[in-house]
């Protein structure tokens, strides 16, 4: 490492320094500082004066890494703003909360920018470690502790699978370098069984983190027990970073034996996620199963040709991220000192009590379901188109069927919001930070659905 590499590492350095600094600030400054730190990182990435000509080892600083880090920093900043109410209501320590969120973003940035199996492992560990604590952050809540344990144990298993897989891949190819290790394994036909087992283990570890069925069992309980802003970060950021790492630096679809595995993961996630989401009456559990389905869709991007796959996949990650952050943010914004509104019954008559919240929630759920003028539709259109091009007609038909069925579970809470007007009171007013995040998410959902050109230009930046 030399000083020349500093510009390339500056965003990561800023995230880390920010996450340590925040521990020493007064508690009421911590969360706003976290949000500003996220924005500062975005500034450092795109500031034209900083040119990262000398590449750093292990992490790339190309267009893909820049856009990914920007996304995670934005989501992290939004999480800091959304967490304010929940930290105040339940008297949680805000300094540690902000520090861990920034550190999780640091891990995501390394993970999605990794050019080596070593940095892939380290990024995943850094991110997961922050989430182990964040999920169980509210120590007085028994479901929180349960969720923490349920995230911890699959997490250990995934780490073990990942390191074993990396060891096998290294034994087979002699390289930690990421695209190179894949290409070396693909060059030998038929692929050696050691390399095959290694890649399959790495893929299953990634499937654990992205909660693809059959590795999804931890998801609903963890989402239910975690504080809502954390669940939002987990659903949008951490899963997005895992998918981004698979898309950007690990073209697994080049390995012929991996294709049926990927297709199987996608199909199982869509089927199991859809049927499990149908009977849910808890908002967070429904969103958890819906995230399993959405991750199944995203695997279609991994199966497509790499260029189209990156564009379609990252566009989908943006649209899904905006909707998920807004959905969990809305649940957090309706919380009080007693806890979060979890069941659909808490939504009864929301349209009358708090019309803006009901409107945004409707918008978000319709976007997740993929209704035409919203971002979710455009995302699915691009994604399914990419999968069709690479010849996965049966998966696209399955995906279309599962989005059709998904309308049922997305429309149920909407009907409750507009139908029954039983409850009194307007709920706590939306505070400034939440208003900002909601406006941003709504803007992304509406603009990406009606005029997606700027977003397509953004993801076109990411191509190598």
């Amino acid at each position, binding site marked *: *490492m030399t000083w020349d590499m500093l510009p390339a*590492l500056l965003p990561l350095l800023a995230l*880390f320094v920010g*996450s*340590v600094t925040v*521990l020493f600030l*007064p*508690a*009421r400054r911590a969360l706003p500082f976290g949000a500003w730190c996220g924005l500062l990182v975005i500034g450092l990435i795109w500031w034209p004066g900083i040119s990262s000509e000398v590449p*750093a*080892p*292990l*992490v790339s600083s190309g267009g893909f890494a820049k856009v990914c880090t920007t996304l995670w920093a934005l989501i992290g900043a939004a999480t800091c703003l959304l967490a304010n109410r929940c930290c105040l209501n339940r*008297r*949680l*320590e*805000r*300094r*540690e909360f902000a*520090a*861990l969120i920034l*550190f999780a973003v*640091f891990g995501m940035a*390394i993970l999605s920018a990794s050019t080596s199996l*070593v*940095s892939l492992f*380290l*990024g995943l*560990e*850094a991110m997961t*470690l*922050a989430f*182990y*604590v964040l999920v*169980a*952050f509210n*120590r*007085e809540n028994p479901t929180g502790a349960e969720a923490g344990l349920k995230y911890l144990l699959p997490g250990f298993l995934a780490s073990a699978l990942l390191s074993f897989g990396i060891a096998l891949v290294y034994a087979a190819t002699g390289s930690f370098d990421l695209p190179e290790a894949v290409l070396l394994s693909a060059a030998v036909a038929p692929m050696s069984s050691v390399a095959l087992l290694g890649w399959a283990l790495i893929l299953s570890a990634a499937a654990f983190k992205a909660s693809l069925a059959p590795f999804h069992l931890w998801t609903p309980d963890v989402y239910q027990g975690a504080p809502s802003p954390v669940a939002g970060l987990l659903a949008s950021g951490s899963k997005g970073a895992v998918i981004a790492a698979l898309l950007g630096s690990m073209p697994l679809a080049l390995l012929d034996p991996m294709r049926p595995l990927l297709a199987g993961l996608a199909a199982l996630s869509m089927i199991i996620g859809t049927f499990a989401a149908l009977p849910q009456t808890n908002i967070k559990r429904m969103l958890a199963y819906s995230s399993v389905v959405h991750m199944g869709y995203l695997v279609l991007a991994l199966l497509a040709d790499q260029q189209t796959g990156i564009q379609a996949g990252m566009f989908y990650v943006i649209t899904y991220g905006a909707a998920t952050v807004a959905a969990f943010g809305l649940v957090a914004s309706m919380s009080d000192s007693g806890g979060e509104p979890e069941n659909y019954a808490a939504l009864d008559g929301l349209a009358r009590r708090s019309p803006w919240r009901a409107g945004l929630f409707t918008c978000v759920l319709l976007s997740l379901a993929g209704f035409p003028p919203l971002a979710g539709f455009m995302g699915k259109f691009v994604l399914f188109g990419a999968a069709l091009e690479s010849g996965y007609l049966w998966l696209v038909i399955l995906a279309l069927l599962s989005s059709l069925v998904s309308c049922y579970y997305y429309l149920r809470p909407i009907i409750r919001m507009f139908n029954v007007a039983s409850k009194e009171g307007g709920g706590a007013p939306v505070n400034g930070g939440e208003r900002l995040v909601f406006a941003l998410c709504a803007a992304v959902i509406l603009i990406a659905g009606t005029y997606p050109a700027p977003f397509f230009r953004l993801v076109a930046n990411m191509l190598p």
Partner: protein
Amino acid sequence: MATLLFYILAAIVLMAVLLCLTRNNPVHAVLYLVHALFGLALLYFLLGAPMLAAWQVILYAGAIMVLFLFVIMLIDPDLFEKKASRGRFRWLPVGFLSGALLACGGVLIMMDPLAAGGIVRYRLSPRAFGRALFDEYGLAVEILSLILLFAAVGAFHLGRRHKGKEDAS
């Protein structure tokens, strides 16, 4: 000879791990784990990686296992009394494993593993290792140290007593 030694050591390691997983008494489990880790160290030595073998003994069989024992004793010191196993042959498995490991270690010291079929190509000098660690993978070492720092932050938060809540501001 080297092949025979490999299979013997592999069998010892597997047996030790199985015994470790099936014990009721956590201290016994840790002792079997030490056997497994020590057996692995001998395997590394057999493959021609003496430095890795030394670290395996110093770090895993030494430092980390002591940490395990500390944690077990801090959590529940009464456990040893309750779960003490009975029977005339209770020392047999651990004695057998230790004896076998000692014998294998002795044979390994007598013979030169490199001459007897170690993998020469991957032999690494401490200098080359240090260079790789702090030059090529320097960033990885830094990231790892940050992960450990935040593990400490997380442990501090989760382990703190409840009344130590943040002062209302």
